[in-house]
């Protein structure tokens, strides 16, 4: 039976809000926060175990919690939040109805069932296989079933997003062109389909193998296809994160992309080339050749990296151009000094951009080159890299945008806005210290996913250089600070959403909605729109080249190998 959607008109943005879509967005966001809570408790235990002077957990529980942490951060927290984002971008942003509410509830049910099943199996000790579960390591079949249920739910949610877009287009609820935010999410959704199909191709046989239906799964094939899920999944995050950057730039400063065509082409580059990223994890593996590795690891000559570099200019340029149009034109950086730093969404976005670029991006590109991977593969430098991308980049961007979702979607005032202004800084400084320490330890050769790097009880004990001790302290302190930042965010979100005062109207809006400003006339593109941003991106490039040079120098000092 068809039921007509019930809309409310948003008194702040003027958008038409489908109540069912709103409820689904809220619930997905709540489960995202729940997964993040599980993940961050895990993070705390892991930091206190690897920090050798504390060494809290016994070996078995270390690997168990590591499995739990990986799953809940990289998959559950992010995918739940992304589903909320996909629904938001395809209904509320477009003033459109949710295309199939019942299917939406089914998707949520599957995802929640999968999330709970997988977490319970891990905690009960039936899946000490780490997030990657490389065969022939084997978990209980219910664990694989949990992942499959979650993935099927997520895939349905992605198709609902496309359904919403079709309904909105037919009904003509928006102009002929999608807003850039939704366009970026569409890119993320397309990548998600490719990713989830890879996931099905590998998890279904593995599930059957765990039941004894098929005799074996080839370990090299498993790793190849599993990373067809694992790495592009992170590119969904990149795409979604960049979309959130554009949205945050607009909400906080009124900034719009200085050239929508360029920004959109960059999203298309993600779709076309990101699916090659499986190679990043196979650079020092047998069974695949160097030709395959070089082509795939570079996303076909780095065209997906080019896309990120385009956004790295375009998002700050949007902010700069808006600020300059407001009259902050003095020098190269007055626009930045006069930016709304008191707005936690703004500071979170800027910190996310810097962290993603300088820590995650630089290490990612260099560690993803075929030869330099030799000196970092499976060392702590690798999680150091993705603490930069997915924690400092994606998670912080998502946390930041939540400060607008609380009043606009949950219709509550933010409780503890004063603390919220500090939250992005605490979290960003913590994760940055953690990530830099991990990269440093990785350069010294310290392995990742390792319970005891003093090797007590082993036939040969290796000791790392003394500087490692200092890095472990930075690691520990950074980790604790980052955990504090997440707990603070969770506290603010839970208190606001469940106990905060209800929004009565625009006057209750604590964070301003910036108005777009007419940009400077630039008819033939001869003028500079964002000179400050250009200088900042060149500084980024210089930093990249220094780190590039260092890593190749380190590589050249190792033994010859061919």
């Amino acid at each position, binding site marked *: 039976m068809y039921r007509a959607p019930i809309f409310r008109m948003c008194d702040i943005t003027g958008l038409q809000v489908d109540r069912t879509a709103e409820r689904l967005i809220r619930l997905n966001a709540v489960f995202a926060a729940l997964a993040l809570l599980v993940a961050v408790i895990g993070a705390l235990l892991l930091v206190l175990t690897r920090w050798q002077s504390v060494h809290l957990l016994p070996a078995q529980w270390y690997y168990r919690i590591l499995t739990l942490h990986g799953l809940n951060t990289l998959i559950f927290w992010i995918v739940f939040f992304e589903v909320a984002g996909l629904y938001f971008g395809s209904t509320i942003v477009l003033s459109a109805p949710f295309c199939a509410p019942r299917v939406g509830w089914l998707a949520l049910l599957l995802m929640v069932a999968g999330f709970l099943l997988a977490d319970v199996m891990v905690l009960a000790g039936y899946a000490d296989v*780490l997030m990657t579960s490389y065969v022939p390591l084997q978990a209980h079949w219910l664990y694989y079933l949990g992942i499959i249920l979650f993935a099927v739910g997520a895939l349905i949610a992605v198709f609902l997003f496309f359904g919403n877009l079709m309904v909105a287009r037919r009904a003509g609820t928006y102009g002929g062109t999608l807003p850039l935010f939704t366009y970026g999410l569409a890119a993320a959704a397309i990548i998600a389909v490719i990713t989830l199909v890879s996931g099905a191709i590998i998890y279904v046989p593995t599930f059957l193998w765990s039941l004894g239906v098929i005799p074996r799964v080839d370990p090299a094939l498993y790793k190849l296809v599993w990373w067809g899920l694992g790495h592009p999944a992170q590119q969904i995050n990149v795409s979604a994160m960049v979309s959130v950057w554009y949205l945050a730039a607009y909400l906080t400063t009124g900034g719009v992309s200085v*050239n929508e065509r360029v920004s959109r082409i960059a999203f298309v580059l993600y779709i076309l080339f990101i699916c090659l990223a499986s190679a990043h994890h196979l650079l020092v*593996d047998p069974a695949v050749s*160097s030709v395959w590795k070089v082509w795939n690891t570079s996303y076909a000559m780095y*065209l997906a990296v080019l896309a990120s570099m*385009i956004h790295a200019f375009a998002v700050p340029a949007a902010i700069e151009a808006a600020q300059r149009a407001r009259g902050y034109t003095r020098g190269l950086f007055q626009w930045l000094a006069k930016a709304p730093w008191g707005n936690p969404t703004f500071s979170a976005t800027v910190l996310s951009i810097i962290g993603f670029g300088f820590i995650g991006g630089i290490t990612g590109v260099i560690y993803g080159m*075929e030869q330099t991977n030799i000196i970092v593969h499976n060392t702590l430098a690798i999680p150091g890299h993705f603490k930069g991308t997915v924690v400092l980049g994606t998670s912080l961007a998502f946390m930041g945008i939540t400060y607008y979702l609380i009043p606009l979607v949950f219709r509550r005032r933010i409780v503890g806005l004063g603390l919220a202004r500090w939250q992005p800084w605490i979290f960003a400084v913590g994760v940055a210290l953690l990530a830099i320490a991990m990269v440093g330890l990785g350069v010294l050769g310290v392995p990742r996913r390792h319970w005891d790097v003093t090797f007590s009880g082993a036939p040969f004990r290796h000791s*790392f250089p003394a500087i490692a001790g200092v890095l472990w302290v930075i690691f520990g302190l950074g980790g604790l600070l980052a955990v504090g930042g997440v707990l603070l965010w969770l506290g603010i979100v839970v208190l606001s959403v469940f106990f905060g005062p209800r929004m009565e109207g625009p006057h209750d809006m604590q964070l301003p909605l910036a108005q777009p400003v007419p940009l400077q006339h630039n008819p033939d593109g001869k003028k500079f729109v964002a000179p400050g941003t250009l200088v900042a991106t060149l500084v980024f490039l210089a930093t990249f080249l220094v780190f590039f040079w260092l890593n190749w120098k*380190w590589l050249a000092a190792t*033994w010859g190998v061919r």
Partner: protein
Amino acid sequence: MSLRPPAEGWYETPIARDERGWVAVAMSVCLCLFFWMIGWHLYGQQNPSSISYRISPSEYMQLHLQWVERYRIGEENGVPVVAPPPGSDVLLLAQMWRWSPVVVLQKGQEYTFHLASVDLLHGFSLQPVNMNFMVYPGYDYVLRFRPREAGEFHILCNEFCGIGHHLMTGKVYVVENAAELERLRQRFRGSQP
């Protein structure tokens, strides 16, 4: 605009000078990175090989044991010590949770390493040189190493392989020359039971 459809004529908007410049610079960097990797294959000393073979764990185990017996010179901490002739093969075995054997190499000579596991995935991590490669069951990964300096080195496992993962360590000796190799041989002979 990010929350609303873009303004009329967005598709025709010319690209500003700074954005155009940045995209050009970024694109040239991207191309350089790509060709750098190919260039390193031609001129660099460190390149992962493309040589690997399928081999069943039991067959590899057999070959490994034969090879160890052939070049064995002693034992250290319960692990056999093997000194293969310079320029020959090294059949390293990864197994939960040990690396076998301890290998004695000569500086500047090239050895053909075979990396294979007989159970799970393992990570070959040579320290403190810091070179890392994956080891699979069912695959023989062939890598030709040329040690650059003499000394004692460790092999760690850096791919999770179960509860005893942190116990999985091995050792490599690199000797300066043939005379030193002989001295080491004597030392191990002396320690033999």
